């Protein structure tokens, strides 16, 4: 992040709990205008819970955002805002794109109407004007013959087209912040590349800050300027993309990178290494480092206390890592 651009989103010490499960346990990061930050991690690492907490979409009966701060440029602190005030911000100052375009669109409404609904909600526009803008948005996100596609129901569109519809909905108001929760995971590889290019292009055109959640490091390499690696509800490593991919510091990040096909030198066929074990039960976390049970480099100190998220000793001061191997 450059010094000149003030962050569009600054998250500080965010904590979200579902019953006894601390899904997000003190997460901090910031995103500038025109910047993409990727949050990487396995299922259950708290990536989606982080995004939903920012949007204020944690279901009220199930979970609660209990601590930290979410600052959105132009709107100030979001945490603790009543839902009515959040609803005014959602879809306008920030938009979200979800993972499953198959289920994320309402099956009984035409897609044009679903996009137009955003405008009808946030300003006093005539039905026909909103519909025209929906068609315009469809054109902007690269849907061919948008006029007639707007009349389609979701099930009449392909997965890639549906995801473009989702994106059109999210960017209706050129939002300062776009949250994308694994938007390409459910798509074919070729479509994935198109959607990634589209989102990347929108960032340039709209100047939005993007928080992009993925478990795919190849996606990170393509679109992100910054990366947060999450594990069991905490950030274990945060760095500029290039620095992180060139030299991962945390053993978990190293494990993630080793398990990506094609990132290792060519040679004889070999079994892809996987990180042994699974994410710990977030309701009963082990004492000390959360990763130590699966860590190949764990030593005595890891069981004593949780390491702080801090710049590595003797390393790049602009990056952060949560590991005793790199702590003072």
């Amino acid at each position, binding site marked *: 992040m450059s010094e000149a651009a003030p962050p569009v989103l600054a998250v500080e010490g965010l904590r979200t709990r579902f019953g006894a499960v601390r899904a997000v346990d003190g997460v901090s990061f910031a995103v500038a205008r025109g910047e993409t930050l990727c949050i990487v991690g396995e299922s259950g690492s708290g990536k989606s819970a982080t995004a939903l907490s920012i949007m204020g979409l944690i279901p009220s009966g199930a979970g609660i955002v209990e601590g930290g701060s979410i600052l959105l440029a132009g709107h100030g602190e979001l945490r603790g805002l009543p839902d009515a005030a959040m609803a*005014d911000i*959602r*879809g306008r100052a920030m938009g979200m794109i979800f993972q499953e375009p198959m*289920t*994320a*669109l309402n099956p*009984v409404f035409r897609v044009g109407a679903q996009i137009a*609904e955003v405008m009808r*909600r946030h300003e006093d526009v005539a039905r026909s004007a909103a519909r025209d803008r929906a068609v315009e948005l469809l054109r902007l996100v690269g849907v061919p013959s948008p006029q007639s596609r707007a009349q389609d129901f979701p099930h009449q569109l392909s997965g890639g087209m549906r995801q473009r519809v989702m994106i059109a909905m*999210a960017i209706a108001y050129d939002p300062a912040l776009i949250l994308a929760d694994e938007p390409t995971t459910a798509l074919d590889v070729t479509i994935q590349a198109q959607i990634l290019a589209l989102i990347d292009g929108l960032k340039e055109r709209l100047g939005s800050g993007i928080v992009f959640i993925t478990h795919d490091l190849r996606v990170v390499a393509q679109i992100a300027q910054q990366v947060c690696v999450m594990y069991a509800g905490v950030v274990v490593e945060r760095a500029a993309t290039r620095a992180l991919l060139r030299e991962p510091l945390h053993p978990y990040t190293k494990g993630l990178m080793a398990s990506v096909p094609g990132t290792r030198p060519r040679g004889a066929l070999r079994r892809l290494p996987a990180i042994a074990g699974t994410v710990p039960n977030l309701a009963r976390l082990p004492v000390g480092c959360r990763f130590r049970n699966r860590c190949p480099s764990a030593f005595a100190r890891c069981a004593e206390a949780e390491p702080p998220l801090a710049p590595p000793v003797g390393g790049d001061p602009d990056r952060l890592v949560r590991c005793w191997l790199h702590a003072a």
Partner: protein
Amino acid sequence: MLDYAIYRIAVLVPTLLAVSLAVFLVLHLVPGDPARNAAGPDAEEEDIALIREHYGLDQPLWRQYGTYLVRVAQGDLGESYRSRRPVLDELVRRLPATIELAGFAMLLAVIVGVGLGVTASMRPNSWVDQAIGAVSAFGISVPVFFLGLLLMLLFAAKLQWLPPSGRGGWANLILPVTTLGLPYIATFARVARSTMLEVLSEDYIRTARAKGLRGGAVIWRHALINAAIPLVTLLGIYFGRLLGGAVIVETIFSWPGLGRYMVDGIIQRDLQVVQGCILFFATAIIAVNLVVDLLYSVLDPRIARG
């Protein structure tokens, strides 16, 4: 869509034939001589034979059925042995009373039932939800005849707020409609609650909220339309039961509708009346279910143009 409708209407013909055959056989195979019944206890054998001949009851069963079918196709449901009046005329004369009763009961069940169900689903397991659940359990488990008598006793006999029986103004409607509708309010409330809970956990509901839609728009627009399909199915299924309930309610409240006409016909062993009523009810139920099936494709675009 149109092809489908035509197909469904064409399929009605064999269905109705089967229904008419079943009704005809059941009523003609039950013990008892309709001619003897019609003639009365003191009739001479000669008179009975005359009646038998007049109504064709001396013919073989298959020929009776054939004649019956031809007449039904011409809109003739026979005439009552007692009153000597055409059954169809009597049905048509009493139909408005039953439509009024069943229609308002259904309306009450849908509006109040769905309203309660949706309200309960918004705060699952809260005291509101539990109170609605308790009322539903009562509504489902209490028998119609008991509820009817109870309401009549309380509001007509004790408090004297409402007339106990008969058809007339709005006041006359309240007790029978409530009696008939309450079990369905309960059923609709339960099904609406569970389908809404299911729909509210769908991804597209989260999308709707992510667009900034407020709670009301999310629930009444995005969720309820998707929850409507199971509810409409229920409407079709329960319409038949509602007509059955109407038979009881009309009898309790002396409501001059089809149900009471049929019950009177049964008590008097008036074969043509019973036969006509059952055929009419069956046709009505089939027709409503046809409408329900066609409604699906209107509600859910994924079913249409399949």
